[in-house]
């Protein structure tokens, strides 16, 4: 009788552990960056009188969202620097040169989160941002996170704006010229659940 009881308790404990463990795995949803419905764009001052707008056409990324334990959520983004597009071929070619993005030496711009904190309306994400061979820790607020089931596929959307100084990432100050040092980066991304 005692043996039967202890076997029953053990079964319950193991079952509960399996359920809890399984639940925590299920809780983190993995999403892939949807290039079609997302954009990474930027703007920088020109001669301090106007703004030049541009975007990166080739971006890849993934994020995992843990709704129950948001601090376990992670975000990752890889931008192909070569895909810079400012609607002017000559300028794009100029931006790929060693004085600017140096895309043959530094082909990607990357972000990898190191900590995530839930805030009202989204997440406060801190992580390593690597551009032009230099890595710096940055923090920004990702707004959104609302889910939508579209034709059986779960989608989630986020957006953020962040300001970066190009000189902080090893861009030559004298080469910056008439284009302002500070660049505003706008990220609007949609993730498709894997």
């Amino acid at each position, binding site marked *: 009788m005692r043996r039967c009881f202890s076997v029953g308790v053990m079964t319950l404990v193991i079952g509960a552990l399996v359920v809890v463990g399984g639940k925590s795995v299920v809780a983190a949803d993995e999403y892939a960056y949807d290039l079609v419905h997302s954009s990474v764009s930027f703007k920088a001052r020109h001669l301090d009188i106007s703004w030049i707008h541009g975007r990166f056409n080739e971006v890849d990324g993934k994020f995992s969202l843990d709704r129950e334990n948001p601090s376990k959520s992670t975000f990752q983004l890889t931008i192909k620097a070569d895909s810079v597009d400012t609607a*002017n071929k*000559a300028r794009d070619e100029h931006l790929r*040169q060693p*004085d600017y993005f140096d895309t*043959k*030496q530094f*082909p990607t711009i990357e972000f990898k989160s190191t900590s995530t904190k839930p805030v009202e309306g989204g997440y406060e994400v801190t992580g390593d941002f690597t551009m032009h061979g230099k890595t710096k820790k940055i923090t920004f607020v990702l707004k959104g996170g609302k889910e939508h089931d579209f034709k059986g596929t779960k989608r989630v959307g986020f957006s953020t704006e962040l300001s970066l100084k190009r000189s902080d990432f*090893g861009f030559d100050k*004298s*080469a910056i010229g008439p284009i302002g040092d500070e660049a505003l980066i706008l990220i609007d991304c949609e993730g498709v659940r894997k």
Partner: protein
Amino acid sequence: MPEPLLYLKAMGAAALVSALFVLALAGVRRPASAAWLNSACVLGMGLGLAVGCCVLPLRWAWPPANGLDRFLTIAVPAALGIELIAGFQCVPRWAAWFLRMSLATTIPGILLHGSVYLNGSGNDWPLWRVVTALMLSGALLAGVWVLLSWLSRRSPGVSIPLALCLTTQCAGLTVMMAGYIKGGAAAFLLVATLLATTIAVGLIAKRAGSPSIVDAPAILGIGVIGLFSLLFIGLFFGRLSTGGALVLLLAPLLCWATETPLLRHRKPWIVGSLRLVLVAIPLVVVLAVAKRDFDRDMAPLLGKGPASTFRLHRGD
């Protein structure tokens, strides 16, 4: 943005330091032996480049992040070190050339280190293409170095280092017009130190009445490595065309034209002037093509292309 005044300042500082250093060291030991003078040239050029880099400013970064960093922190010190060792009389010629050829074959790989060409992220560059490019580039550098040194020993004179200076200056301008401003600026510093060292050595040789002293292999070595490296990074990281880079690298070899029986026994100043004129011809063509391409590429950025207009009324 290019800053001509700053370039002139940096070139002036680099030239002054190099020339004064060489003249001072030559003054310490009279008469200066060829080995002593060669060492003075190496140290003078190293010091001149260092001062010029500080004025420009081109910072030494460690670990070097890009092609230009690797040129300044690895290629130039390696060339200076090898030329310093090669200059000692106790070092056999074959050993000196072994060191030089080792450097020539490794420099292309050093300059491309960590780039899309070597780390595999550039899909358009398969391994065989990378290996071929590295081997051909190394062979070209070695070939130019050997041929110029041979000519310098056969028929010494300031015209060979001057031809190198002329070519490097044009290379700098072309690289700059191809969109790589810092790369071009580095070439100007190299020209200033090479030119100042050559003039200083020329003065010492004149005073000593020994024209063979002018054959300072260090000037040629640093000049050839510098010219090759700047063209190489301009080609692989910038937008310098392969044709333009090849013409610029091979142009100094036109100095060999004066070795034909018809010109060989002319007066030294005629031979020297002819060498410079012959080298200048392809350089002018490359510069003209680079300027045309620059104007064409920059027109849309400078508002010379089609644009819509708007009228602004102030005060109404």
